[in-house]
């Protein structure tokens, strides 16, 4: 800088001297021509031009070498700094002469140099920013994921890798739903939110509580709060950011409620096991010796024990649904076989109340993708309800057919009390949440709440139609296995696992 300043000052000074001399000579020439020689206008101009030319030539020659020194120095500097292959031929310093060529060459080099300096400055600023950003993101003590517009993970920090138990490098480039097996406590999931904001908003943010993440290798599931930020127009494709706030410890403490239920269930099941065992022994041994009345009592005893077993399972599963711990493994099953066997199991319960189950199953139903145990519970609940509310009616109809949407639909219809329209919409709410319901319609809420959760998790729908005094019809749909198996092929799983909250899990993946 000192050198440049000195050079500027020197050049200014020299120019000043040159102009001073130049003007003095011109003024002297004008004075000489006008006053002494008495030249006319054109002669005077001609003289002045001659003087100017001679003088310029003299000054140029005299100052030429002197001025070239700093120019050559600048030139050397430029050559040293600017890369050789910049498209402008570098002249040899000793052959440098004043002229258009020199000026063009020099300005080209200087321009190039300036651009380079600018680029270098920008680069280093960018690099600094990147480094800084990277450092912050990497060392952020919270798991952080960045997604591009295709919901592919483009960045996962160290905390994220540790949390999920997968190296960041293995997550980058993968679909977020493949890597993060999240379940949400309500139907407002990250997935549905993201879909909505993508069509509606340029930027948006949201958060969720009690999200559950299933981690590979049978680690206990992680529980956390999730915050997401969406920015559609980000130039670096940082479209969506996810930050996880772990609360596994805190939330698992709430799970003790589930442990309590599990323990109670254990205590209930032991006497139940015995009860059913002794009933069977007595039934075997005494069958031929009992009066018809006592035989009937024996049947009722068995039916009641069966019902208690079903109820115990309900309690347990409701607790699991509430805690999002009910996992379904969907497998290919022949629906007619499953339905028939479930109806046979429950027929005894109907029989002891004088009710006949009339089961009609359409031929050639496609195989369904179900978790058989859970769907049996749905059937148990619907048929048990129908038995409970049949009143004096003695028939319950069970129909299964392929509906217009190509889904396997099963309908349980009773001709009993029916349900008041005013409470139809609350029917699938858990019973202890609405005490009026309980007073009016017994304890149905529990079973229906569970059934709804199970059917929904299967990708189906549970519905009700009822008229007071005419009976109720409950129906649910199931997906043919063919529809599910495509999904299984895509995700590479042999088995399709769903949580009770259902569709929620890996929704996008399943729909894609």
């Amino acid at each position, binding site marked *: 800088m000192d050198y440049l300043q000195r050079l500027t000052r020197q050049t200014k000074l020299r120019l000043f001297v040159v102009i001073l001399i130049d003007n003095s000579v011109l003024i002297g020439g004008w004075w000489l021509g006008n006053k002494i020689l008495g030249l006319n206008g054109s002669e005077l101009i001609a003289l002045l031009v001659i003087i100017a030319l001679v003088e310029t030539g003299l000054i140029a020659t005299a100052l030429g070498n002197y001025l070239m020194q700093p120019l050559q120095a600048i030139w050397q500097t430029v050559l040293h700094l600017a890369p050789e292959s910049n498209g402008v031929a570098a002249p040899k310093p000793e052959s440098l002469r004043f002229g258009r060529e020199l000026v063009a060459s020099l300005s080209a080099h200087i321009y190039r140099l300036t651009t380079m300096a600018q680029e270098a400055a920008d680069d280093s600023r960018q690099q600094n920013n990147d480094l800084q950003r990277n450092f912050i993101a990497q060392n952020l003590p919270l798991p952080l994921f960045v997604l591009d517009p295709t919901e592919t993970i483009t960045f996962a920090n160290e905390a994220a890798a540790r949390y999920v138990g997968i190296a960041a490098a293995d997550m980058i480039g993968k679909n977020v739903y493949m890597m993060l097996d999240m379940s949400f406590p309500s139907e407002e999931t990250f997935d549905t939110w993201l879909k909505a904001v993508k069509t509606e908003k340029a930027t948006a943010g949201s958060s969720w509580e009690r999200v559950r993440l299933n981690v590979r290798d049978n680690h206990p599931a992680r529980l956390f709060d999730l915050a997401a930020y969406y920015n559609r127009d980000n130039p670096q494709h940082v479209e969506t950011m996810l930050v996880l706030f772990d609360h596994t410890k805190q939330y698992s403490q709430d799970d003790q409620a589930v442990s309590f239920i599990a323990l109670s269930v254990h205590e209930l099941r032991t006497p139940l096991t*015995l009860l059913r065992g002794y009933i069977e022994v007595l039934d075997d041994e005494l069958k031929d010796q009992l009066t018809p009345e006592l035989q009937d009592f024996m049947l009722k005893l068995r039916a009641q024990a069966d019902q208690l*077993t079903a109820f115990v399972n309900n309690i347990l599963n409701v607790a699991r649904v509430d805690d999002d711990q009910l996992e379904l493994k969907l497998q290919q099953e022949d629906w007619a076989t499953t339905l028939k066997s479930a109806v046979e199991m429950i027929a005894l319960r109907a029989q002891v109340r004088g009710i006949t189950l009339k089961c009609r199953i359409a031929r050639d139903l496609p195989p369904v993708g179900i978790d058989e145990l859970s769907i049996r519970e749905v059937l148990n609940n619907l048929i048990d309800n129908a038995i409970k509310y049949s009143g004096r009616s003695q028939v319950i109809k069970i129909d299964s057919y392929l509906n217009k949407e190509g889904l396997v639909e099963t309908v349980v219809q009773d001709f009993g009390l029916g349900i008041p329209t005013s409470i139809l919409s609350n029917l699938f709410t858990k019973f202890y949440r609405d005490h009026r319901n309980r007073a009016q319609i017994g304890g149905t809420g529990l079973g229906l709440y569970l059934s709804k959760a199970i059917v929904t998790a299967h990708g189906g729908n549970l519905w009700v139609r009822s008229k007071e005094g005419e009976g109720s019809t409950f129906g649910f749909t199931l997906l043919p296995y063919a529809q599910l198996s495509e999904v299984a092929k895509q995700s590479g799983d042999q088995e399709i696992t769903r949580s009770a909250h259902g569709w929620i899990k890996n929704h996008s993946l399943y729909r894609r």
Partner: protein
Amino acid sequence: MGMEPPPNTSKSIRKILCIEDEHFISELYTRALTKGGYEVETIADGSKALEAAETNEYDIILLDLMIPTMSGIEILRVLRDPARVPPIRAKIIVITNLEQRDDVRADIEKQADGYIVKAEITPHELVEFVDNVK
């Protein structure tokens, strides 16, 4: 139902070790299994049961999970230890009324040859189940 299944005469009588601390349950199971043609030994204590399983030859071990002195899960782990030479030949069927977390249950099912919730089956159904364990 009144007819008893014919005793298993086609091959030698299969031996069952029933590890179950609830006396009434083991009594019911022993009765049904004996009628089904099996030879049943019942042990209520975990450590003693493990010792028996390691020294005697059984075809099938029915294993309750909540038992005194040593848990069923622990017994399962010891018996199914991959480093064990020679491995235990018996098929192990877990019989429990305790509800497990899904991941725990999956772990147990991986090591055992069967998993039964006792309240879900009657003694007859247990015999049918055991008949099908090959």
